[in-house]
């Protein structure tokens, strides 16, 4: 696979630059596949392959896709849990992609993450108070008393009683832990919070509690969210704009209403049609059943990665990678159908 130039895939039009908090340009994250005695790299898993999008201040950007599409990797690369293979991560005007861990440290405060698994995201050996104070300690903020006070305030904000600070994570239910996870993300007053499937592991009734809290906090602190999820209904509920990923690539980006009312990419269309009906008597629009399975990201199809399953695939699609183009203002699609 040839590495394509960055400029080619950049969205042609961008809204007012000043209100953009995060801009991702041509982001790639390849994981080497090693084999043999010398652990030679024999190939790459192209988890994220040339993804570009931007998030405006104060908005929620939803990233959806099925498992293995690279949405989580995208999030983790942005927060630099992974070294990006290529591409820019421009946060607040600063490209984070090339920074060393030390140079990155000031930005660590500004971008925080809420994780999927409420059972593994909190260190089981530490009390909730300790977990929540850790960010202060790492960044040398506040006195002991202030830290305590802040921690208690945060617990209160996410709907937990402050006196629970000396309890261990195992004493809490999943929903409560997820709220603690959110509290931890808030400790350093971040500008951007990346939610990596934050409600996927929760019971339905708990899921709505957490979504509501996230909504409230966004308003209160003026937060920007990158919300990663596979549940289209949840994403639609919380997001302002949505990007749809498939096999490491961005298929379509637009605001949520347009996406649901007028999906352009065949993959988005199939995805939406697959959602079970929300009422038994609802008359479902034609369901597009996709054939086969998602190909392996270590050996993605040539051309458009979706062509192997696309009901409308053309010969052209097998050869040429479609660019992500702005078809309507704010509506980006990567599909040859619209050329």
């Amino acid at each position, binding site marked *: 696979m040839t590495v394509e130039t960055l400029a080619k895939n950049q969205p042609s039009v961008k809204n007012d630059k000043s209100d953009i908090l995060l801009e991702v340009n041509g982001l790639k994250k390849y994981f080497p596949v090693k084999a043999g005695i010398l652990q030679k790299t024999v190939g790459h898993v192209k988890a994220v392959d040339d993804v570009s999008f931007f998030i405006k201040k104060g908005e929620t950007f939803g990233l959806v896709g*099925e*498992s293995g599409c690279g949405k989580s990797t995208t999030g983790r690369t942005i927060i630099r849990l992974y070294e990006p293979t290529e591409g820019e991560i421009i946060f607040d005007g600063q490209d984070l992609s090339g920074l060393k861990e030390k140079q990155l440290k000031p930005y660590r405060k500004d971008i925080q993450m809420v994780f999927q698994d409420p059972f593994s995201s909190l260190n089981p050996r530490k009390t909730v108070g300790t977990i929540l104070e850790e960010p202060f300690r790492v960044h040398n903020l506040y006195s002991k008393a202030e830290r305590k006070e802040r921690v208690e305030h945060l617990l209160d904000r996410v709907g937990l009683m402050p006196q629970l600070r000396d309890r261990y994570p195992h004493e809490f*239910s999943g*929903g*409560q832990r997820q709220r603690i996870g959110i509290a931890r993300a808030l400790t350093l007053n971040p500008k951007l919070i990346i939610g990596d499937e934050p409600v996927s592991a929760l*019971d*339905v*009734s*708990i*899921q*709505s*509690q957490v*979504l*509501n809290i996230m*909504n409230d906090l966004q308003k209160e602190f003026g937060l920007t969210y990158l919300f990663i999820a*596979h*549940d*289209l*209904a*949840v994403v*639609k*509920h919380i997001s302002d704009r949505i990007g749809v990923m498939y096999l490491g690539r961005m298929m379509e980006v637009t605001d949520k209403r347009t996406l*649901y009312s007028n999906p352009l990419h065949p993959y988005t269309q*199939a*995805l*939406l*049609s*697959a*959602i*079970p*009906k*929300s*009422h*038994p*008597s*609802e008359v479902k629009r034609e*369901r597009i*059943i*996709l054939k086969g*399975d*998602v190909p392996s990201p270590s050996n993605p199809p040539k051309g458009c990665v979706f062509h192997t399953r696309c009901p409308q695939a053309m010969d052209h699609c097998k050869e040429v990678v479609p660019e992500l183009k702005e078809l309507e203002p704010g509506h980006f699609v990567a599909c040859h159908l619209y050329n």
Partner: protein
Amino acid sequence: MSTLLQVKNLKTHFFSKNKVLPVVDGVDFEVKKGETLAIVGESGSGKSITSLSIMGLVPKPGGKTVDGEIIFDGTDLLQLSENEMFKVRGNEIAMIFQEPMTSLNPVLTIGEQITEVLIYHKKMSKKEARQKAVELLKIVGFARAEEILDDYPHRLSGGMRQRVMIAMAMSCDPKLLIADEPTTALDVTVQAQILELMKELSEKFDSSIILITHDLGVVAELADRVIVMYGGQVVEETGIVELFDNPLHPYSKGLLGSVPKLDEEKERLSSIGGNVPSPDNFPKGCRFVTRCEHAMEKCLTEQPELKEIYPGRKSRCFLHDEGGNE
């Protein structure tokens, strides 16, 4: 329609040193021939243990069905000896599980796993069983069924494995299929494939299905009737449309309200406060009392009964005593 399965006052408890966990605590329902009954509830509601109780597969040690009747096709399964149950399981009642990744034995080929059921229950020869397996695999949508037979489960994707599970479950033409969260672990496009398949099969085989899920969308797609479970008990039993149109029990209402829907836009979702109670910590009175918006004094101390509110619709709530719901 005649009744295929009738569960009466089923109680399956878990015993540990100093505690008794009433995981399933007096469940009543019935399944008619050919219908799909959905059991809906969140984690800890006892829906999975209910299904395992029917199969006589309550996890041991610790779990035990202590009371009730499970009348299947005229016999009480709880009265059957273990030897007699061997003939029921996999043959008359089959089951598919949530995790297609782990529910298939990783060291046996697909073929071995399907044919062993046929050889065991239907006394087929290896060859016949293999032929039948190919047929079954074709039915569940494998074009290259012959090749799949000799593959090991790890070579298949999640959706394919779930289809294998379904083929395996259907192999003996069971009268009842219990599907425990059959699509929860699957991606949405794959889920769609499986749902379509199940719809097709339920028509084709005319089996009754107990569909266990927490996903109301799946219920809306597949079920004819629904029971809603909470805290080891049935809190509502109703037809599918009625549930979505007019849920009776406050929990059912809360549940419906807290699911975001594609076709409506709400700033906030309605939500049920608090947490799903765990069986070692069930409230004394109504199990839902700690989270109920309408809780009354009475609810703290007394357990409401499951009563028929409208014909074919039951609910377990004191509110109905006071003249219907709001």
